[in-house]
């Protein structure tokens, strides 16, 4: 089972201490990427819910390389883990019991686990947790709360610092002196004392604003805090907390009301200035490491660099997507910016050039309500190689390999400048890839303004020499006059395609182009032309499909299925009525059955027999997608469960059913999440071990997370979005047979972490069979030599033992 498609931009990424690795929260795992190549190095697997924040242990001076690759992670499952992410090993678990939404360790510099000096204090973390079961007090739903947690002793330190409506994101200054949150229209800031960290000692400082705040950032050294609000303004408070924080626990000092420009009421700050450039909510603020600049970003896709003293600004435009987070690395020449389209760009710093991009699967295209159900953005899928073609917001198509989980290429479909702020008026509404992937068609729609100037055009593409490289062959403007294109289908084994439209006709397109070799380029002459136009009683045509050998074309005319001879344009037969308008058709392999489903109030799923033109079996099910294999009689159906159905557990709103077409009883069933807008497809398995031509079933859910599995192997009723591995190699043997060193010398005494901390070093907890993977992987990702040595020796021992067994 292969799982992928997680979002890279749910939480801000974090650089390792040397800036060579980037830790990214990807669903339940943390992925470690190399910043030089942009490739995945390893993954930290252990959490069972979404990972929300990462804190990398910094390296201070002489402590050496021992802690160079250690980090803390917090997740919604209420656990905080301590990792060595070079191997990767899980070192420590702390159970907080409440879902952690944000998590910072202010004194991580001064107090690290396993510091040699005895005087080092306990490690305290500020956590922002969600308590959904909390009682309603005074009519307020205060779900979020900020707490202090002692990571060393795994206990809660004191009570609640603050309560918020929903869990807020914590911000910490670089020196670890201040911790703050935004709370509606105010900022709450705490100064972290050097010693004796208790919640009663903490003094809260409030700074007020007239609009709801969206983010905040602390200056690395000075008492300056910047906050952004929902209207795009940036507020800079300078010299905050001088009075309150200077006198610990003392009485209220009288605040000098004069000469404090911009500061509201009794707020404790010297001055407050406002900058305004962005037109929408500020997504991130970040002070540069040289303390001279402030970076800000919002929906426009422009990073604005503010000179802190003067307020002058320069821009880094053309990132091409709404921005989410900005992270700087310990290496001053490197930083990264996360975009809403599931991409992380690594920037070379003073010039802000994009060095590398780490891109995940593109998020689904969300259209405004104008179109309703009529136009649905569909995903193209190439079965042979296993990639999907996803329309993106910036008028492109992303080709994404499901088997490798990597982005292959991008194709500019509409030649238009993309502006993230504008609402979507031009979009790619349909992508269809032929079975062998050699041809592709796209339909793009331009919505009219007040009835003026709508345009639909159909484009045919031909594959170039690489996968995912397509060249434009033909553009057809207004293929069905004004009406929209409802479905496209390619004829297998022939360059022929059919497009159906809501205006009641369908057109068969043929490609009679010849290729002219001119130099190294291949020029195409001719192109796609309309071969025939047909209609059936002027009923809107809603779906089309070719049979496996391409000899029969089935076109759905709302509730009826009409069968045509595509070459001669002759109506062969009509199969009668389903309950509602048919959404999609599919021929079942080479058998005599055709499958259809309709949506809406009268949703149903029907299998028709072509030979006697009758209904074979049917279900009253709200179906989202169907797919059939080309050779076998297996059929996979993605059905949506109605909300009234009580038998389903939370979050699971759909199920995948696999049928044998002869039999209406499903062969196997799985429950899935977020099935709305999902797609199913059978994909040829080309992974090493299974070359027996077994088909994998790919399920892509509405948020473009996907799972690939062999439908004959995976057990029924299993959850199809598992929490565990993305790469299934570590599953091989898990039995507790003692190997190598242990088999000869017996078990070693187990290590106690607390003891180890006092005894000057952190022992590593090796994974169970490290020698199998110890030297695999790129050289920059290898663990240090001290770690490699003992398991390697151990593996030598194991070999010797095996030989002795053989000799006996």
């Amino acid at each position, binding site marked *: 089972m292969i799982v992928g498609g997680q979002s890279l931009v749910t939480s801000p990424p974090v650089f390792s201490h040397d800036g060579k690795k980037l830790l990214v929260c990807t669903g339940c795992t943390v992925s470690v990427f190399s910043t030089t190549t942009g490739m995945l190095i390893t993954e930290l697997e252990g959490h069972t819910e979404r990972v929300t924040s990462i804190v990398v242990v910094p390296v201070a001076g002489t402590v050496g390389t021992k802690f160079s690759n250690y980090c803390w992670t917090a997740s919604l499952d209420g656990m905080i883990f301590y990792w060595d992410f070079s191997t990767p090993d899980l070192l420590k678990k702390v159970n907080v019991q409440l879902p952690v939404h944000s998590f910072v360790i202010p004194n991580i510099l001064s107090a690290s686990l396993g510091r040699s000096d005895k005087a080092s204090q306990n490690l305290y973390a500020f956590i922002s947790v969600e308590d959904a079961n909390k009682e309603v007090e005074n009519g307020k739903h205060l779900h979020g709360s900020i707490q202090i947690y002692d990571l060393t002793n795994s206990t809660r330190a004191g009570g609640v610092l603050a309560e918020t409506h929903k869990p807020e994101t914590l911000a910490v200054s670089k020196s670890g002196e201040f911790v703050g949150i935004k709370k509606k229209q105010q900022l709450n800031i705490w100064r972290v004392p050097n010693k004796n960290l208790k919640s009663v000692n903490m003094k809260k400082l409030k700074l007020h604003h007239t609009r709801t705040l969206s983010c905040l950032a602390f200056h690395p050294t000075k008492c300056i805090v910047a906050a952004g609000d929902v209207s795009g303004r940036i507020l800079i408070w300078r010299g905050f907390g001088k009075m309150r924080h200077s006198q610990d626990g003392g009485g209220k000092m009288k605040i000098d009301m004069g000469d404090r420009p911009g500061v509201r009421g009794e707020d404790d700050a010297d*001055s407050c200035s406002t900058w305004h450039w962005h037109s929408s909510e500020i997504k991130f603020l970040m002070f540069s490491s040289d303390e001279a600049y402030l970076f800000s970003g919002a929906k426009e896709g422009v990073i604005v660099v503010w000179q802190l003293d003067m307020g002058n600004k320069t821009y880094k435009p053309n990132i091409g997507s709404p921005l989410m987070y900005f992270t700087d690395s310990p290496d001053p020449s490197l930083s990264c910016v996360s975009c809403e389209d599931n991409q992380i760009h690594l920037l070379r710093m003073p010039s802000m050039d994009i060095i590398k991009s780490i891109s995940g699967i593109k998020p689904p295209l969300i259209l405004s309500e104008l179109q309703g159900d009529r136009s649905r953005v569909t995903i193209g899928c190439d079965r042979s190689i296993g990639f999907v073609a996803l329309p993106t917001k910036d008028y492109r198509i992303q080709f994404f390999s499901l088997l490798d989980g990597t982005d292959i290429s991008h194709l500019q479909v509409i030649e238009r400048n993309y502006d993230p702020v504008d609402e979507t008026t031009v979009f790619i509404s349909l992508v269809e890839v032929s079975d062998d992937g050699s041809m592709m068609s796209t339909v793009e729609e331009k919505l009219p*303004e007040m*009835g003026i100037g709508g345009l639909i055009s159909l484009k045919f593409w031909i594959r170039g020499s690489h996968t995912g490289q397509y060249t434009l062959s033909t553009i057809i403007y207004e293929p069905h006059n004004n009406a929209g294109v409802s479905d496209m289908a390619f004829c297998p084994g022939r360059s022929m395609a059919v497009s159906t439209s809501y205006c009641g006709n369908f057109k068969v397109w043929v490609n009679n182009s010849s290729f002219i070799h001119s130099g190294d380029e291949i020029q195409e002459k001719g192109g796609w032309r309309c071969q025939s136009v047909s209609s059936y009683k002027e009923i809107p045509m809603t779906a089309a499909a070719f049979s496996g050998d391409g000899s029969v074309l089935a076109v759905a005319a709302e509730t009826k299925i009409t069968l045509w001879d595509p070459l001669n344009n002759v109506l062969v037969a009509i199969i009668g009525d389903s309950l509602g308008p048919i959404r999609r058709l599919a021929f079942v392999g080479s058998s005599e059955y055709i499958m259809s489903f309709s949506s809406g109030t009268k949703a149903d799923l029907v299998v028709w027999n072509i030979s006697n033109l009758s209904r074979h079996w049917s279900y009253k099910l709200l179906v989202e997608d169907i797919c059939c294999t080309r050779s076998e009689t297996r059929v996979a159906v993605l059905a949506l469960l109605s909300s009234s159905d009580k038998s389903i557990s939370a979050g699971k709103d759909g199920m995948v059913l696999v049928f044998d077409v002869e039999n209406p009883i499903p062969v196997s069933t799985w429950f899935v999440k977020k099935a709305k807008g999902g797609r199913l497809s059978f994909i040829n398995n080309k992974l090493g071990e299974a070359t027996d031509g077994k088909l994998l079933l790919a399920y892509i859910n509405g948020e473009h997370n996907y799972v690939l599995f062999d439908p004959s192997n995976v057990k029924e009723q299993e959850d199809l979005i598992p929490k565990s591995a993305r790469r299934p190699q570590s599953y091989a043997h898990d039995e507790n047979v003692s190997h190598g060193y242990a088999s000869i010398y017996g078990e070693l005494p187990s290590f106690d972490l607390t003891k180890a901390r006092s005894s000057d070093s952190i022992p590593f907890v090796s994974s169970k069979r490290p020698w199998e993977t110890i030297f695999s992987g790129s050289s920059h990702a290898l663990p240090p030599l001290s770690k490699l040595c003992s398991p390697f020796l151990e593996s030598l021992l194991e070999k010797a033992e095996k030989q002795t067994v053989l000799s006996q």
Partner: protein
Amino acid sequence: MYLQSPLPLGNCGTRLCFPYEELDVSDLNDWTPRPWLALQNPSEAVTRPPALSTEYTTKTKRSEAMMADEATRRVFPTEPASHLRPRSRSVKSLVSTPESSFWRTFRSSTLHPSYLHLPITSLSFSPNSSLLAAASSTSVRVFSSLSLSEYDPTLFATLPLPDLAYSPSFRCDGALIAAGCENGAVRVFDLPNDKPPKTLRRLNAHSCASRVVGFPLLDHKLRLFSAGDDALFVQWDLPTETPLFSVPGAHRDYIRAGAPSPVSPDVFVTGSYDHTVKIWDARVNSGTSSVLSINHGHPVESVLFLPSGGLVATAGGNTIKIWDVIAGGKPVYSVETHNKTVTALTLAKVRDDTRLLSVSIDGYLKSFDFSRFKITHSMRYPAPLLSVAFSPTGTIRVVGTNNGAMYMGIKKKKDEFEDQVGSDDFAWSVPLPEKPTSRKNIRYFKRGQSEKPSEGDFIIKRPEKVKLKEHDRLLRKFLHKDALVSVLKTQQTTSIMAVLEELVARRKLIKCISNLDNDELKLLLSFISKKATQPWCARFFMDLAKWVLEIRAEDIRSGGPEMAVHVRNLRSMVAHEIQVQRSLQEIQGMISPLLVIAGK
């Protein structure tokens, strides 16, 4: 620290209020570069709806940022999409390529050798002098002094033949000429300069017309081959008049084409009306079977070895095909650009390259570059063409028609180097490998920025800058109305359509229309009233006209006489269009019963 800052700190946080927008004091720093402030005077701003103005400010600010950096992503200008262009049925304008400019340097003239309107079946150039032999009716005429200055060639000699003459062929040294005849006899003449030509040999083997006669291309002066309608193929020994190699029944139909190999004196190719092309080797005496047989698919009219000797070009039907002989007769390429039967092929030297010239009954002469498999030039003549020849010096091209006229093109003396080309190595030479340029010269290292790239250099081009027009630049600054006005002033319909469509995509068209002042509205109205009923954009413009009239009804009413004229024009245009539609409907009503009847 803070107080030393040059900002007017006392006002930090307070805002100046303009009548139409809210502005931060910190924004005052960049007061000057704001285009919108320069464009709007306050009085105009009052008439502008406030919602739009704020839109302008934030977007203008963004546009500044956009302009700063364009390197990372591609920029697409608003281009008129091709669906907007009215489809023209006119022929594409002549594109000037280096090849076409070469062919244009030929000055053409017409020549009627016989004044009898008899077809000129074959043309041939002497390999080393500028003699041209033309077979027409019962004689072969040899012309000389096809010089550059004189267009009227003088008749050098007339070779008498007993019947219709075919296929004159010069020996490699140009001293002898051979020709076939309808009665089958092949005659060999000498061509002395001062005396009339004399028949040297008569070769009698063919029983029917000997349509193909040829000397070998290499220095083999005593051999000759011939083939004819009796399907006999013979290689002759000239001194003794005896056949050396004879294949009776070489084909199953008339042999109408043949050519010697450029690399071996003993290899020939023949093409016949039985659709096949056969390669013969006189050294292999294997009876009637050929070395190689290729099926062309149509009756073969002409065959030719390409200079390498490994490729054969055959013409028959409408197609010319290139075959790889060494690879056992593999088809390499097929040219299907002629509309009627291709009648003759020849090789031509174009600058440093060699082209395959083909002529056809459809009156076209086409030049085919067989190294790139591309038709590079085509010329049209007013009559069906039967034969073609190109002089070895590369300066004269002659085509013969079926009505007795010869069309000649003589190259004007422009390229000096073309005269220096030796006669014999014209088509068959392999270019010498070029000397690598020396890098040792001190001047190579001291070359400066103005150094021109030499021929072998690989040129890395600077990425081309996208040329933005005025309206594009305004659109990038989000000044939608100004963009619309500026494009309306250009009066280019397709550009105007493109900008209007872009405005629709940005949801700004209606706002733009409502913001136009009276003069600009006149511009728009005059444009609409001209174009509203053009069929390719009518759907868009009818809706637009409706909206303009609806939104700006007040302004149009009070707009004065000029506005009234535009509206009147529009009305009359719509009335006319309705009339056209009605008459079209009448025609449809008349035709549709006919169609129904025809369908039955």
